[in-house]
């Protein structure tokens, strides 16, 4: 079958662009309730799968590819929904309500949902295109990386964020020799505070990972047509068979921006998932949404993708739904299970609590005297209790006393001061 520009494009009443958690959540939210046709265009070749386990259970071998599937094949064979794999949308004509793909295939829509996610940030290193240099965003990326991190492999991870550290942990577990190179003066600088970062660093060091802080990478060395190592900013060379570049992601918003959608740090949406273009919604990692204080933020999180996907589906169905954010995050590294509630940013005070379990550390972040986030490392009770104290005033003496449960650390609101 061929498709030419003259053919009338296939039409979907709702066309979802993307194949990740947000895209699937919209499709699942519409399934069985929405009368019209739903199309999902995914750039990837795999059926939609869970992304968080890629660098956790999948890389460590505890979870296989089949277990990653977000929905069974039968979900995508149901009447009314069509999943089209290998379709990367490269242009949107918002006025004509038509998208076109990398192969020039066009689809028209009644309503468009942009859930294209994010792409690994590329920092223009020389040698970044050599075999042996990896990035980790998709299942295909991760499968390739997994094949190369066996015993004796020398792995250099550029970037000490969650993805880089989870990959470092899996690599050292697989028997590889691992170095992490981080440009900032500590690990995890974008996502958590200094106490947790140092705790994580100590545990990685104890597991045999080498960590270089305040270290930049100027290029990847070519050894016989493959990655042979990296050159650091101070001139040192780190030999490597495998180089992972994991320095963050950028939202996949440029196609929608070219179509005229208002974009800043991602596609700007309102609390119901609407973009500035008519009949175009967006959800997930690619979006930038309004916060209570009138600013905007973008979140790289599963919870955000799922809840925004829910809101968009409900809005399309004509139900009243708005998005409110209490994000949670988790990461498994070496022998640490790190769980976070809230956003670790803008805090002016931190309280540290050390429980009895090995590797246990909890940090409570306060802004203006109220809890804005909690990091709980190997501390499930504190993670659970964190949801009770979020937004509340707490007594520092009780918070830092591990014999008191965190949920019992409330400080009574002072009477007579009104709504503080």
């Amino acid at each position, binding site marked *: 079958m061929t498709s030419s520009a003259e053919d009338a494009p296939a039409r979907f009443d709702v066309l979802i662009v993307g194949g990740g958690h947000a895209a699937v959540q919209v499709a699942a939210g519409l399934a069985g309730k929405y009368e019209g046709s739903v199309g999902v265009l995914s750039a990837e070749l795999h059926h939609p799968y869970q992304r968080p386990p890629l660098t956790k259970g999948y890389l460590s071998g505890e979870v296989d590819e089949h277990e990653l599937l977000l*929905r069974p094949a039968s979900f995508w064979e149901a009447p009314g929904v069509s999943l089209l794999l290998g379709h990367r949308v490269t242009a949107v004509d918002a006025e004509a309500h038509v998208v076109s793909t990398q192969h020039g295939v066009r689809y028209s829509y009644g309503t468009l949902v942009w859930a294209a996610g994010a792409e690994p940030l590329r920092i223009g290193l020389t040698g970044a295109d050599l075999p042996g240099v990896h990035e980790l965003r998709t299942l295909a990326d991760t499968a390739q990386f997994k094949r190369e991190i066996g015993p004796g492999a020398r792995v250099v991870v550029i970037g000490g964020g969650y993805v880089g550290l989870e990959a470092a942990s899996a690599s050292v577990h697989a028997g590889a020799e691992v170095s992490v190179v981080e440009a900032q003066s500590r690990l995890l600088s974008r996502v958590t505070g200094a106490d947790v970062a140092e705790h994580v660093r100590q545990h990685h060091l104890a597991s045999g990972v080498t960590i270089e802080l305040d270290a930049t990478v100027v290029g990847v060395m070519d050894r016989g047509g493959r990655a042979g190592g990296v050159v650091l900013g101070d001139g040192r060379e780190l030999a490597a068979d495998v180089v992972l570049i994991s320095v963050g992601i950028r939202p996949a918003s440029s196609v929608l921006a070219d179509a005229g959608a208002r974009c800043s740090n991602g596609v700007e949406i309102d609390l119901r998932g609407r973009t500035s273009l008519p009949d175009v919604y967006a959800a997930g990692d690619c979006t930038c949404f309004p916060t209570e204080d009138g600013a905007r933020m973008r979140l790289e999180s599963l919870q955000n993708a799922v809840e925004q996907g829910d809101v968009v589906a409900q809005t399309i169905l004509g139900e009243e739904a708005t998005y409110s954010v209490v994000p949670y995050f988790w990461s498994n590294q070496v022998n640490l299970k790190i*769980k976070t509630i809230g956003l670790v940013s803008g805090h002016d005070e931190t309280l540290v609590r050390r429980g009895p379990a090995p590797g246990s550390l909890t940090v409570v972040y306060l802004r203006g005297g109220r809890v804005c986030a909690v990091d709980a490392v190997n501390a*499930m009770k504190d993670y659970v209790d964190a949801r009770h104290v979020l937004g509340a005033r707490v007594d520092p003496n009780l918070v830092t006393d591990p014999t008191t449960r965190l949920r019992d650390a409330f400080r009574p609101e002072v009477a007579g001061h009104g709504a503080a």
Partner: protein
Amino acid sequence: MTKITFRLPAEDRIVSGEPGESIMQVAVQANIPGIVGECGGDMSCATCHVYCEDQSGFKRISADEEDLLELADAVRDTSRLSCQLKLTQSTAEVTVEVPQ
């Protein structure tokens, strides 16, 4: 293969699962309402709560699972997170009740 009966408010749904799969995974794949499994089984969300009377085919509840169950509604003695109920060869059938 294990025959799993999901007891829902309006009906029973019977689905089969393979050894190594968790009841949460089977439920999500079968679109069982009320079992979300948002975090994929990494014990971060408590959205796969079920009641399971006969737990003899499963590992006993861990301290972490017990703690995380506090986030679920209407917890009973038989409450489990279904992501922690892993099927084995030896379990021929099991019944779980989906809360609410």
